[in-house]
């Protein structure tokens, strides 16, 4: 069942984030809300809830719905876009940015903070060394 699969992925991701946080926070103060790590943590949750269907749990463009689209959803690990551009795609959707019309506009669904967190999370996954931030 796709719904159960999504719940499972979210559960695994939350658990992984919590374990990571517990390890890094051992003997330290709680993660301050306005740090980059906190934004990445929150962004991972947003990503798991809204983005994995198309972009996949690894953000490589291989989500379960990817087969519906040509071109396929972006491999976010290899994106060459800067944070501002990524933020606009998230907020306005693909069509408004001259890209895939199947990338929905998330501006009415997510808060500004959630969208910033999402960009921070995607940035944290990026495997390119030449991408401007």
């Amino acid at each position: 069942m796709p719904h159960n699969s999504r719940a499972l992925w979210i559960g695994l991701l939350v658990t992984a984030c919590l374990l990571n946080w517990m390890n890094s926070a051992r003997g330290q103060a709680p993660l301050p809300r306005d740090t980059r790590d906190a934004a990445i943590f929150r962004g991972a949750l947003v990503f798991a809830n809204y983005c994995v269907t198309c972009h996949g749990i690894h953000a490589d463009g291989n989500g379960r719905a990817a087969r519906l689209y040509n071109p396929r959803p972006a491999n976010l690990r290899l994106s060459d876009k800067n944070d501002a551009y990524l933020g606009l795609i998230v907020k306005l959707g693909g069509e408004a940015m001259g890209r895939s019309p199947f990338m929905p506009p998330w501006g009415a669904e997510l808060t500004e903070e959630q969208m910033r967190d999402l960009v921070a999370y995607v940035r944290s996954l990026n495997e390119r060394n030449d991408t401007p931030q």
Partner: protein
Amino acid sequence: MSCRHPCLAGLAAGCLLLACGAAPAHAAEHVLIQKDKAFSVKKLQAKVGDTVKFVNEDPFAHNVFSLSDAKSFDLGSFGQGGSKTVTLDKPGTIEVECAVHPDMRMVIEVSK
């Protein structure tokens, strides 16, 4: 000779009537409203050939899609007052979702 054409016309008319009788009933259009981040029905019974019209009555965009074997589609994003229609061309179960609102789900049962 003069009666041959009326006879042929009658034969053709009869064939047409038979063909109409053998054809499936007129396809129905089902209208599904999307309001308050929910589909107006959770389960819809339909026939092959029917259409389903998705109407967005929320003040924000929805993005209806399905990955089911009976029908895979993505209607894209459409805002308030917008609508998109999909034709049911195979029997089976179609799980319909909204890409923007993961908790929005419904099922269409398509029979022959």
